[in-house]
């Protein structure tokens, strides 16, 4: 700067940001539903549920509304009875293209003024109360959607269920939703099995409907038959019994994949499936037979992540289908120069098409895990190794089996990562989560038990995680020279205390888990009980299975 020159003046605007242009209530409603009308609600309860609960969520008004609740009734019982009665009435008239008069009145009141910024919704107490009432009545109307029916219904109610089933099954392109008018790219509503009993979130306000945002993952809803009364048996086979370091190897990315990757710090690995010297299907059939001799009916077989090749899976699937037993198995498919290897779970029920779901997250192997599994000569421990799989097709299947049982299956990392799977699992609250792992022993102190405990707490799911005996034995925590304890599974549910470790005794080949139904009352934050219809699968038997003459 030359002597005597003045520094240039710094222009400071009066405001840090441009003039405020906040999202207004009406704008938000039109964003969710371009045909939104403040005087005419949609006829279908899940649509009304979505449009009522979403602004309460978006504006965070749902917590404040409880400060003046119930809005008009003297007690929670009176509110609960009213919501139940109005919901039941709605089921009977929806097909006439109308909503009950009380619902219409509440709708018009709830949206009487939509001119203000949405963030100020909590200041409009009456509107908030009406929105919550609408959401609750729609929730009551939607009881049983997506799950097998338990009670005798009226003809009108059967038509209601039929319509819900039809909407839900129209999922081929964009995933499932119960909404009739709302486009799936804006919002979706799915059946719900658990209302969280701790904390206060938007999920605390409904028993039967789940509000789901985002298209990051496609939820899929499948209906399958499981013919049992109140309990069923799962045969867990922790196959393979042996995993060797040579199965792990580094691999190249696809030609145009991540060309900026720094090979000094990052790499890809894959896990080779051993050549099929063993006839896995034959072995598992023998284990199943032994299990039947000991326990009786075995309804399903569960195998860990990457336990089978495609060929092995097809053979086993066929064999189990003939026996009327379902199969949940992790399958690995090798990649080639143009395709990633696949790491997927396949759920096969007799007489149904198979459900296939890919893993959503890549496993990252770092130094401590490389040491834990003794892979130091196979994968350089100074490099971070990412599992070389495709993660593009993100779907999460929910399998409706019984009135008290909706199950979902996760693969390894998907249990640990909060998104995109975690939010959806917490919203829907499946009764049973089966996690297929390629992991060390399933000890109470380890990560799988922590995440299982988290899901048991909220939303209340029972969680079974299963790893292979081979991986459990390969795992040697740092400093230990002992062979890992073969704890191949862990069970955690919301009602039975701490996680239960399930080990495979020496010379045994599988474990049958007897899983029984317990019911308990759940309460929504607005004070409605569910009549103790919430199902909690509970572990009520652990039976190791041994096949004479079969090696381990």
């Amino acid at each position: 700067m030359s002597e005597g020159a003045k520094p240039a003046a710094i222009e400071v605007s009066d405001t840090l940001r441009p003039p405020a242009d906040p999202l207004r209530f009406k704008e938000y409603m039109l964003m969710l539903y371009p045909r939104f009308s403040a005087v005419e609600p949609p006829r279908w309860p899940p649509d009304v549920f979505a449009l009522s609960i979403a602004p309460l969520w978006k504006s965070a008004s749902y917590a404040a509304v409880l400060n003046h609740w119930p809005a008009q009734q003297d007690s929670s019982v009176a509110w609960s009875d009213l919501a139940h009665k109005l919901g039941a009435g709605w089921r009977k008239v929806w097909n006439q293209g109308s909503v009950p008069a009380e619902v219409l009145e509440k709708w018009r009141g709830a949206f009487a003024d939509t001119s203000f910024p949405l963030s100020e919704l909590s200041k409009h107490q009456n509107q908030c109360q009406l929105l919550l009432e609408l959401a609750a009545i729609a929730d009551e109307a939607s009881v049983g959607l997506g799950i097998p029916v338990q009670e005798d219904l009226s003809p009108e109610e059967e038509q209601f269920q039929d319509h819900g089933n039809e909407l839900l099954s129209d999922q081929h392109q964009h995933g499932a939703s119960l909404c009739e008018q709302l486009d799936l790219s804006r919002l979706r509503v799915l059946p719900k099995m658990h209302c969280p009993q701790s904390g206060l979130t938007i999920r605390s306000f409904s028993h039967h409907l789940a509000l789901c945002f985002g298209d990051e993952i496609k939820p899929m809803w499948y209906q399958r038959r499981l013919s049992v009364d109140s309990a069923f048996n799962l045969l867990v086979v922790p196959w393979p019994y042996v995993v060797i370091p040579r199965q792990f190897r580094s691999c190249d990315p696809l030609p145009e994949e991540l060309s900026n990757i720094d090979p000094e710090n990052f790499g890809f690995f894959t896990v080779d499936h051993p050549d099929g010297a063993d006839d896995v299907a034959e072995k598992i059939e023998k284990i199943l037979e032994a299990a039947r001799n000991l326990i009786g009916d075995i309804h399903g077989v569960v195998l860990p992540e990457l336990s089978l090749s495609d060929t092995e899976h097809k053979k086993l699937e066929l064999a189990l289908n003939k026996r009327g037993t379902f199969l949940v198995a992790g399958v690995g498919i090798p990649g080639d120069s143009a395709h990633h290897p696949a790491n997927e779970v396949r759920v096969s029920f007799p007489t149904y098409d198979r459900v296939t779901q890919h893993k959503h997250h890549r496993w990252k192997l770092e130094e401590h895990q490389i040491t834990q599994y003794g892979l130091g000569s196979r994968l350089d421990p100074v490099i971070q190794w990412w599992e070389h799989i495709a993660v593009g097709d993100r779907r999460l299947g929910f399998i409706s089996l019984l009135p008290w049982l909706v199950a979902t299956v996760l693969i390894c990392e998907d249990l640990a990562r909060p998104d995109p799977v975690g939010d959806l699992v917490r919203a829907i609250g499946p009764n049973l989560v089966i996690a297929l792992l390629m992991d060390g022993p399933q000890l109470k102190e380890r990560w799988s038990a922590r995440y299982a405990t988290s899901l048991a707490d909220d939303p209340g799911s029972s969680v079974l995680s299963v790893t292979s005996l081979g991986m459990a034995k390969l795992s040697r925590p740092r400093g230990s020279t002992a062979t890992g304890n073969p704890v191949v599974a862990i069970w955690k549910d919301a009602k039975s205390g701490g996680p239960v470790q399930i080990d495979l005794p020496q010379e045994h080949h599988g474990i049958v888990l007897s899983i029984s139904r317990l019911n308990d009352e759940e309460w929504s934050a607005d004070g409605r009980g569910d009549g103790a219809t919430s199902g909690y699968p509970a572990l009520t038997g652990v039976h190791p299975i041994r096949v004479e003459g079969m090696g381990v």
Partner: protein
Amino acid sequence: MIRLNDIDSATLATIAQYQQLPTQRKHTLVGRLSDQAKPIGLILIGDEPENPSAEAVEIAKDFREWTLRNRKSRSSVKAVSAAKAEPVLVGVR
């Protein structure tokens, strides 16, 4: 071997469970089914398909039993404390 696709699966569950649907609706639902699932749907709505396979008859029977079983097993409040006992390991150790 019969393999029900997702539409078959949802539709047959509807037909099996909701017997009071209008006849026209039942036939519309059967019309959505794949060729292999159609005989099952027809059996479930009380029509008689031509020469249904033994497998189709068996699956229709399964759907009926599943529906009845679900209705019999209505929920009831059970003592949750029953689950608080550690499961007993049978056979070894």
